[in-house]
C-alpha cells in the first residue's frame, strides 16, 4: 500500500486531470451555446455562419436520405487505403535507401525537389493520367505524404547508434538481422510519429482530391455545399472531418498502446 503522502499526490494528479478535461468540454459547450444563442437572436447571419442546430438537422437529413454514411465511408476508405500504401510503401523505400547508400545518394536531390514542390500543382496531371476517379484522389494523397515519409524514416534509420550496429556486427550479424533486431525496434517511436503526421497529411490530400474530382465523399459535400451556397452543408462537412480525423488519430494511439504491452 502507498503511504498517505503518496496517496495525496496521486489524488492531486487525478483531480488536476479531471479539471483539465472538464475545462476542455466546457469550452466546446460554451462555443456551441454562444454560436446557437447568437444565431437565435440574429446577432450573426445564419445564412453564412450556419448554427449548431442547422448542422444537426443537416446531419439528420443526410442520414434520412441514406447518404451520410455513404459519404463518410467513401472518404474513410480513401484515407485508409492511402495511409496504408503511404506508410508501408514509405517504410519499405526508406529501408532500401538505408541498405543501399548508393541509391540513397543518387536519389537524394530528387527527393528534396519533390518534397518542396507544392503537390496541389500536380492535381491536373494526376487527373489526366488517372481519370477523374477514386484512383486520382488516392494518388494525390500518396504524393503529399509518401515523400516526407521516406525522408523522415530514412533519416531516423540512418541516425541509429553506430556503436550498437558495431556491437551486432561483432556477433557477425547480417544486414537483415541488423534491420529487424536493431533498426526497426529502436525506431519504434519515430515510426509511430510518422504515422501520426501521415494521417493529417493524407486527410489534406484526400479532401483536396475530392474537391478536384469526386462525386462523393465528405470533401465533395463541402465542395457541393459551397457551389449551391448551402453553408449548412459546408459546416457539416467540416465538423464530420474533425470527428473522423480525431477518431483516426486515437485509433493510432490505441494501436500504439496495444503494441507497447
Amino acid at each position: 500500500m502507498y503511504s498517505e503522502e503518496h496517496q495525496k499526490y496521486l489524488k492531486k494528479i487525478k483531480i488536476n486531470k479531471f479539471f483539465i478535461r472538464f475545462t476542455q468540454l466546457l469550452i466546446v459547450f460554451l462555443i456551441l451555446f454562444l454560436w446557437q444563442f447568437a444565431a437565435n437572436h440574429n446577432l450573426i447571419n445564419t445564412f453564412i455562419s450556419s448554427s449548431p442546430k442547422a448542422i444537426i438537422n443537416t446531419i439528420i437529413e443526410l442520414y434520412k436520405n441514406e447518404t451520410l454514411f455513404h459519404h463518410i465511408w467513401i472518404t474513410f476508405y480513401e484515407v485508409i487505403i492511402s495511409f496504408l500504401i503511404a506508410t508501408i510503401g514509405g517504410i519499405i523505400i526508406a529501408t532500401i535507401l538505408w541498405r543501399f547508400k548508393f541509391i540513397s545518394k543518387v536519389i537524394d536531390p530528387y527527393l528534396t525537389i519533390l518534397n518542396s514542390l507544392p503537390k496541389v500543382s500536380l492535381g491536373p496531371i494526376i487527373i489526366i493520367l488517372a481519370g477523374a476517379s477514386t484512383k486520382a484522389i488516392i494518388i494525390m494523397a500518396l504524393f503529399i505524404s509518401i515523400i516526407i515519409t521516406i525522408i523522415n524514416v530514412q533519416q531516423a534509420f540512418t541516425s541509429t547508434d553506430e556503436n550498437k550496429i558495431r556491437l551486432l556486427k561483432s556477433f557477425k550479424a547480417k544486414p537483415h538481422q541488423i534491420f529487424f533486431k536493431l533498426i526497426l525496434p529502436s525506431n519504434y517511436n519515430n515510426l509511430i510519429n510518422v504515422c501520426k503526421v501521415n494521417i493529417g497529411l493524407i486527410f489534406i490530400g484526400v479532401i483536396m482530391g475530392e474537391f478536384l474530382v469526386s462525386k462523393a465523399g465528405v470533401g465533395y459535400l463541402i465542395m457541393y455545399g459551397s457551389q449551391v451556397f448551402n453553408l449548412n452543408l459546408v459546416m457539416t462537412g467540416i465538423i464530420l472531418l474533425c470527428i473522423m480525423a480525431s477518431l483516426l488519430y486515437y485509433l493510432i494511439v490505441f494501436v500504439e498502446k496495444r503494441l507497447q504491452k
Partner: protein
Amino acid sequence: MEILKVKHLRKTYHTKKHEILAVEDFSFNLKQGEFVAIVGPSGCGKSTILSILCGLDKPSSGTIEINNNLKFGYMLQGDNLFEWRTIYKNCLIGLELENKLTKENLDYVNHLLDTYGLKDFKKAYPNNLSGGMRQRVSLIRTLATKPDILFLDEPFSALDYQTRLAVSDDVYKIIKKEKKSAIMVTHDLSEAISMADRVIVMSPRPSTIKNIYEIKLTGKSTPIQNRKAKEFADYYDKIWKDIDYHV
C-alpha cells in the same frame, strides 16, 4: 600456448582531406588464458587495434594469425544495451544472431546472471539498472556466446571510481573463472597493472609499441588486492614515464 599472433600490423585511415597513419607497427602474441592490457595516449590507435583484431576493420598491412576454431567476444566502449529489451533478452542477442538458443546455452546465461548478482533483474529493463550492473550485463552478453578471447575497450570508463574498482574486480574474477583470454584497452594505469599479466605501452600516433611489461606481483590475487603489492608503484612509475604525459 600462443593463440593469437599479430605481425607488423599497420593501419592508415583515408578521409577526403587527410590520410591518417594511426598505427605504424604493432606486433605481439597472446597466450592461452592470458590477460593483456594496452595503454597509451588518447588517439594513438588502441580502439583501432581492437576492432582490427576482432575483424570489424581491415588492416592496411600486416598479418593476424589465429586458430580458426577460436571465437571472439568484443565489448565496446559503453554498454550499448538495447533499452527495449529486458536484461535477459539483452544477454541473448548474440545467441539469437547465431541461431544458438539451445537449452544448454540459455541455462548458461541464466547461470551467469544468477552468479553475478543480476538474478532479480532478468525481467527489468536497462534504464532501471545502475551503471555497474549495466556493465556486468554487457559482459554477460559477450560471454553468452562462449568466446575464447575477449576484447575489452575501456570497459569501465563510464563508472565512478568506487564502482569501477568493484566492477573491475568482478569482471576480472568472471574472466579468470570462465578461463578466457582477454585484451583490454584502458586509460587507467593502476587498472592495467592490477588486472593484467602483461601491459603493452603504445607511443603517440603514428603508434608503435614502446614497451611491454611482464607484471610480476608478490602475492598476486584480485585486482583490488594487487594494488597493495609492493612492486605496484614501481610499475606505475615506469609506465607513467613511458607515456610521458605533458600537462
